[in-house]
């Protein structure tokens, strides 16, 4: 077991907080998973024990709902704390309705008031403030960042080379976290509750002591500095909590403290890091142990247990970051990806389903719908029936949960280590072992555009600008498959190199100028890092290649000789119909690009992975990509993630899902996203049938080794009405490629994209 030995001082922290807890390993080492293993009690029953919201919760949510309305009316941002750069202790305590808050803590001194993060880059802060109509930052802050302190953004652009800039401009690589925080790091916030901050500081100091007297190489010095900063962050966390009246230096002593300590840890991390996706991790089995202990001791009732969960969820719903409009176009609806992973199986065959998994899902009924936290159900065909049914019911009723295949992830080795049973999802589909693994988030490369570069000799089809050097365009009236494939291989070789260079630069500078001290303080020292790259336009590229192979595709060239349109004679098999003739192309593209990425060297020896995920950027990618050989007109949105192209999947959603399931997780270890939409009536005739049918469908998809399924169960009419009367649908939630959004906060373009997308007539 690779659990680091703890400083002996931890053993003396045998606190009353641990009374009644079993197990020994976790008392000697920081090993939350071992604590869960020793103390978790699975819930095999149904949802009948659940309780409604407490009066306090109801009042609190009412207050938040009012603020959310004001936020929308104000154009998306309610208020900004422009005076102070965000940090763990930067702001005075804030409350929503203090008398009703069972769990406290806000990012700034008021709810929904956003902080600024100038360490990432002053330019983005100023741009966001201007775009949302707020006063610019005070002169002092500007002076600091103009004259004394370099930002992440500046660092990145200092090292970018011309090819990176060209790719970024043309959109063949889009969404790079060089102008926003990278996110997708999950601190093990449970550690704060289980051990208290003092023990964690002691552990860090002990780790730093390991290199006392060692040769001070660059990596040793980096590690020592990072640990020193992590200790400071932990000290700050204690101060932040003290300001709210809590001493979190010692372990949490009861359920309420456990929730509060854990949330403080998360909040501190969210105040320090401007991460695009700031997941809270896999916390239900952990918290359930505390809740069950208090329930057994008669200290709390089920209603109070639910209240704790509901109030934590309220806090997760109001996490906010100030973003630019550009960011919103890519990732629409103001998402924060407070991803909360639940369920899954233990490696020894016990379900990690607890009553608290149910309580978390129940919050969607108690508080109404919400896109955040991003509730992610780690699905296994072995999960207890009672939970499967409740999860399916919640999916049908709310369209606010997603399912990811625990049976595929658990055994998957990443960097030589299986993900096991204590991983969590960051953002949408990115699995990482909690506290042991983190990722360098890397957006995505546009494979459809890359294919056009292969045809056009590296010249961008929209601008006519040469992006890739040294390639000549394909001549001839009809595209030849082998010739296209050869060129396409060359383009991908080149693109992979540019892409890796950009990401190495970004993460080197991010570590340097905007480090996530607290998140990393809640990780093991020897953390596994992945470089999480991604591809967009998979279905478009696959269909285009299928068309070139099986039909006759004639490029229509403009005066400059650039193919700006394509004429297709004949039919071709399209990805998404469970037809290997097309699906294999998608599989080979995914594997091929991954193999190309693996040839490179990665910053901090990160293990390269990739995702097939677009989030809502499928719209922007489509806009920035010319007509493609599959028959897609210029500018038309891509399908999201690994979805088949809209309308080309003709055999129903199981066939589509089976096609998607062929994309091997081994070649896309950062996740493969599939979004399926259905109307309630087509899932079955009665509510009971719908629940059973959906649960069976998810089982079937997972058996076929499908990775991820976003389920929307909605009527098209509801969405159309919501577009016209947003005020009547303030909480309408819909799943989009790995996360959920408040439908009315999508851009109109994206709303239309969602509506046009195949609403599968059945199931």
């Amino acid at each position, binding site marked *: 077991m690779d659990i680091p030995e703890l400083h002996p001082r931890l053993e003396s922290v045998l606190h009353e907080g641990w009374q009644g807890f079993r197990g020994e390993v976790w008392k000697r080492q920081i090993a939350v998973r071992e604590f869960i293993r020793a103390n978790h009690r699975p819930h095999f029953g149904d949802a009948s024990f659940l309780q409604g919201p407490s009066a306090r919760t109801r009042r609190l949510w009412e207050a938040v709902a009012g603020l959310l309305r004001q936020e929308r009316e104000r154009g998306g941002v309610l208020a900004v704390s422009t005076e102070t750069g965000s940090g763990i202790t930067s702001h005075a305590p804030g409350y929503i309705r203090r008398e009703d808050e069972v769990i406290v803590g806000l990012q700034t001194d008021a709810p929904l008031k956003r902080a600024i993060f100038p360490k990432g880059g002053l330019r983005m802060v100023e741009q966001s403030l201007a775009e949302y109509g707020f006063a610019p930052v005070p002169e002092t802050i500007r002076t600091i960042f103009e004259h004394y302190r370099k930002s992440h953004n500046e660092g990145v652009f200092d090292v970018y080379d011309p090819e990176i800039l060209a790719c970024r401009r043309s959109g063949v690589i889009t969404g790079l976290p060089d102008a926003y925080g990278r996110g997708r790091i999950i601190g093990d916030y449970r550690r704060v509750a289980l051990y208290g901050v003092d023990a964690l500081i002691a552990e860090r100091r002990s780790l730093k002591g390991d290199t006392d007297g060692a040769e001070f190489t660059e990596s040793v010095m980096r590690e020592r500095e990072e640990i020193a900063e992590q200790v400071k962050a932990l000290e700050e966390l204690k101060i932040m909590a003290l300001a709210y009246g809590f001493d979190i230096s010692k372990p949490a002593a009861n359920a309420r403290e456990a929730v509060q300590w854990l949330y403080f840890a998360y909040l501190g991390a969210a105040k320090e890091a401007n991460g695009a996706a700031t997941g809270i991790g896999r916390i239900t089995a952990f918290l359930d142990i505390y809740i069950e202990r208090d329930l057994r001791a008669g200290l709390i009732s089920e209603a109070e247990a639910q209240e704790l969960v509901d109030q934590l969820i309220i806090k997760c719903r109001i996490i906010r970051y100030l973003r630019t409009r550009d960011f919103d176009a890519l990732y629409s609806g103001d998402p924060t990806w407070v991803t909360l992973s639940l369920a899954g199986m233990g490696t020894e065959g016990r379900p990690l389903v607890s009553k608290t998994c149910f309580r978390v899902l129940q919050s969607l009924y108690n508080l109404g719908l919400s896109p955040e936290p991003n509730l992610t159900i780690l699905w296994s065909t072995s999960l207890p029936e009672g939970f499967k049914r409740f999860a399916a019911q919640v999916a049908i009723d709310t369209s606010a949960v997603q399912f990811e295949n625990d049976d595929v992830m658990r055994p998957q080795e990443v960097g030589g280590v299986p993900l096991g049973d204590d991983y969590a999802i960051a953002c949408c589909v990115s699995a990482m072992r909690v506290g042991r693994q983190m990722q360098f988030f890397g957006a995505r490369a546009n494979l459809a555009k890359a294919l056009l570069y292969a045809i056009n000799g590296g010249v961008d089809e929209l601008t006519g600008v040469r992006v890739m050097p040294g390639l000549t365009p394909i001549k001839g009236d009809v595209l030849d498959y082998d010739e296209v494939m050869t060129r396409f291989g060359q383009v991908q070789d080149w693109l992979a190199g540019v892409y890796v260079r950009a990401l190495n630069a970004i993460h080197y500078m991010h570590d340097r100028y905007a480090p996530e001290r607290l998140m990393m303080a809640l990780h093991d020292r020897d953390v596994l890092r992945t470089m999480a790259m991604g591809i967009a336009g998979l279905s478009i590229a696959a269909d285009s290649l299928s068309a070139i192979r099986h039909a006759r595709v004639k490029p229509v060239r403009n005066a400059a000789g650039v193919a700006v349109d394509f004429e297709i004679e004949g039919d071709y098999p399209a990805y998404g119909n469970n037809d290997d003739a097309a699906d294999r192309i998608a599989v080979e593209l995914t594997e091929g690009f991954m193999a190309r990425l693996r040839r490179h060297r990665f910053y901090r020896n990160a293990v390269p992975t990739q995702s097939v995920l677009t989030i809502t950027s499928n719209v922007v990618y489509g806009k920035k990509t010319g007509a493609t050989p599959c028959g897609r007109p210029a500018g038309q949105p891509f399908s999201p993630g690994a979805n088949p192209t809209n309308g080309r999947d003709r*055999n*129903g959603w199981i*066939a589509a899902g*089976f096609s998607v399931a062929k994309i091997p997780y081994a070649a896309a270890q950062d996740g493969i996203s599939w979004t399926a939409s259905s109307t309630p009536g087509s899932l079955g005739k009665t509510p009971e049938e719908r629940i059973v*049918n959906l649960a*069976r469908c998810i089982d079937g998809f997972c058996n076929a080794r499908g990775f991820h399924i976003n389920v929307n169960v909605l009527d098209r009419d509801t969405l159309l009405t919501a577009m016209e009367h947003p005020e009547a649908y303030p909480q309408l939630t819909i799943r989009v490629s790995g996360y959920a959004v408040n439908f009315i906060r999508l851009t109109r373009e994206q709303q239309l994209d969602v509506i046009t997308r195949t609403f599968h007539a059945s199931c």
Partner: protein
Amino acid sequence: MPVADPEGARTGYVHSYETGGAVDGPGVRFVLFMNGCQMRCQYCHNPDTWKEKAGRLQTVAQTAADIGKYAPFLQAAGGLTISGGEPLLQAGFVGALARRVKDEHGLHVALDTNGAFAGRLPDRWFDPVDLVLLDLKHIDPARHQALTATPLAPVLESAQRLARMGMPLWIRYVLVPGWTDDEAHVERMADFVARLPTVERVEVLPFHNMAAYKWEAMAGSRYALADTPSPTLEAEARVRACFAARGLETA
């Protein structure tokens, strides 16, 4: 109309298939739409399946292989529903396919039929069929003729024969305002259905005119129901109650 070679046809005309259907039999199903139908129902929502030869000619083996890709899924989730068109117009192909799918994968097989030709098939033809979704259009012979352009008697005889064979039945009744919602007729239909001992449920399907675009695309046919509204929820409830009053389970 003849039912050619009920035992052995190796090829059939297939319109399309849909995976994931959850409203054509129990669970989640592979729904195979066969081409060809002898009825010309005024309210048909798949008129594009009427002409047999308009379909894609496929072998039993090809079709079974398509279905087989989903066998483990369908075993757990539901099964196969053979629909149409009228699948019994190609009884040779359909029978061979049903047998093969049953033998190879053990799938639950449902047959969605108007019933008119069921009487001409030998009992053993139905061995691989687990459930018949029987579409009863109208109980009055003249109205049935007007609505479907075919006689009623063979349909009712088939229904009784299937029931005698012990075949589980789901009766499907499309509720069309002005055509099939007359109270007296519904009562008579319910009386008839209640006397079929193997009926497991009655599905009252509200008419919708969403197929108008399919009718428009077909030369030489007129969609008489283009302006017919969907039935009201009250009307639906009333018709369901009529079946339920006879102890029938409705959906």
